């Protein structure tokens, strides 16, 4: 079975509008975009992508934080993500 993180990864970065709502397994929901990612280790049982860097829309707008700042945004563990939904069409691409 194909790794769910890989399916998500391939679909997400092909999308033109990447603003999403991410709901974590602990119930917290955030609006924003994923800007980068960390690969898992092929020699262990990691998912294809183990972590994501996420910038919240609000942060983006207010602080004009550039996404290449080394510690911009927050890092999310893939396994803690419950669902990701696109803002423009409400398509849920990961659940």
């Amino acid at each position, binding site marked *: 079975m194909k790794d769910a993180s890989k399916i998500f990864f391939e679909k997400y*970065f092909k999308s033109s509008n990447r603003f999403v709502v991410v709901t974590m397994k602990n119930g917290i929901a955030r609006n924003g975009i994923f*800007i*980068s*990612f*960390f*690969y*898992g*280790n092929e*020699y*262990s049982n*990691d998912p294809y992508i*183990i972590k994501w*860097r996420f910038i919240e829309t609000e942060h983006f707008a207010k602080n004009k934080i*550039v*996404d*290449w*700042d*080394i*510690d911009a945004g927050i*890092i999310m563990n893939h396994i803690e993500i419950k669902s990701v939904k696109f803002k423009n069409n409400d398509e849920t691409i990961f659940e």
Partner: protein
Amino acid sequence: MENNIHKKLSAAGLLVTLGIIFGDIGTSPLYVLKAIVGDREITEELVFGGLSCILWTLTLQTTFKYIWLTLQADNHGEGGIFSLYTLVRRYKKWLYLPAFVGAGALLADGIITPPISVSSAIEGLRLVIPNIPVIPIVIIIITGIFAFQRFGTKIIGSAFGPIMLVWFILLIILGLSQVILFPSVLKAFNPYYAFHLLTNYPKGFWLLGAVFLATTGAEALYSDLGHCGRKNVRVSWAFVKTALLINYFGQGAWLMNSGNSHLGALNPFYEIMPQWFLIPGIIIATSATIIASQALISGSFTLISEAVNLNFWPRVTIKFPTEIRGQLYVPSINWLMWAGCICVVLYFKESGNMEAIYGFNITLAMLMTTLLMGFYLKYVKKLSSALVFLILFVFISVESSFFIANIVKLKEAWMFLSIVIGIMLIMLLWYTARRTLNKMVEFSPIIQHLPALLDLSTDTSISKYASHLIYLTGSPNPRQIERRIIYSVFSRSPKRADIYWFIHIERTGEPYTLEYKLDKMVEDKIVRVDFRIGFRVQPRVNVLFRKVIEQMIANKELDITSKYESLGKHNVAADFRFVMLERFLSVENEFSLKNRFLLNGYFFLRNLAQSDSRAFGLDTSDVTIEKIPLVISPASAINLKRVTSDMPGDGNE
């Protein structure tokens, strides 16, 4: 070209093979039978049994396992435990472990072989000058061998083959001269004598520890395969094995014929040598042991170089003393081995004492090779599981017996076991830490940075950082790039350049691959170069990149004339600047205990190792080193509260 000549079956190739491959195993007659007899009573049971064990060990272990079976497992002509590992690594994730143990054992062996070989040869001088100080002579010779490494073996290497040829002819003549006096020694061809010795002779099984010394060079033989080629090794082995057996049997004949009840301090190898021939004989023997030592030292350099290229070992300085392919010099390993050899000589003093520790490491290396061979036979050669099991069963049984027999040496060999464990732990730490660090490398799609990168390139309000700015990227995917590079370009003093180059190096499982692919992501602005480099090739980026530039200029794909008006007018070439990003552990991180240990160990070793710029051959280029913090698990949120000042005069009264 030179290499190809050696790999074809030819008289010259056979001669070179004698010099490179068979030095170690070829000098074993200096000490093997002496070690088997030791202080035991000389009887037919012991001598014939010992000879029979040697014969069948050389047949089963050296001829069948190494010459016939293992030499088939070549990686584009190259042998050795890491070559074998690269052939099978994709089939099981844990196969790096036997490769580490085997490599550690081989490196430790390189510390024992020169002292025992050279001492055995020089001790023969006592027959001529009884009070000669052997230890200083051995130390001088060993120091000379290691001091000479920096010059390579191009000049004297051509003499190795002829010297070894003389050595093997000497073995034959000396052996035959005794066998004809006591031809019944040939009865030892019967394996019954070996079986009887191991099962009925008091503590006979433990004699395997001494018998094993006859085949210690077999593993090195596989490591040096690439220098000579399989056909040359196989054909010359027929000659070498004949010479070895004739000499062993000659020594056995002398033992049976001498009338001595015990060997005492005598060495049967020198006893079968006529008195008048002792001095030239010792000179030839010493030369042969120097050649044997040279082969092991060269093998250790190759092993470390492969380990560095496979990311199993911290980067160390590797030099190329000659233009001969594969000839290396690793100064740090050279002098560490020298120090180890001198300690062995000073501690054990006599070759007889060194025999007590010799062999243990090699049994370990052989067992690991057998294990990896099992995977090779099953997955690469596609042999049936039953046949692979049978082959493994035979060799693991034999090698385990040798291993158990050698375990008694642990009392003396603990120091070497700790060297093996130390080397293995360094490899394990380096490899595991790099795997952990690789999980901390952050990538982002390069396409989302292209507009900003193009704007930056043309923004004249920012002074130009370099005409050509080059980054080394670890991203195997050309559509992605590390965020730290993006951070360096934009946020670490914005770096405007005419052309941005991203160079990626992929290490292949083939030894000598050397090719590249160009990807002009944005014409004349952003170019990615993907090098594919074999694990035996040094990644000298400056040389390789220059070659790429030359080829692009020749193809009219690139104009490197300076874009600065004044310089361009005079056809001055544009400037190239490399930016190397060095990661360091940030105080911001909160790691688990395991990761903290791993990463601290890794960065400690990395500080001792060669810098990235030197490792990539960029020390003569314009290189900027930038330190980028490794921030992956930021410290927990800090609750920082702003308070108003109540100092007089600040308007808060």
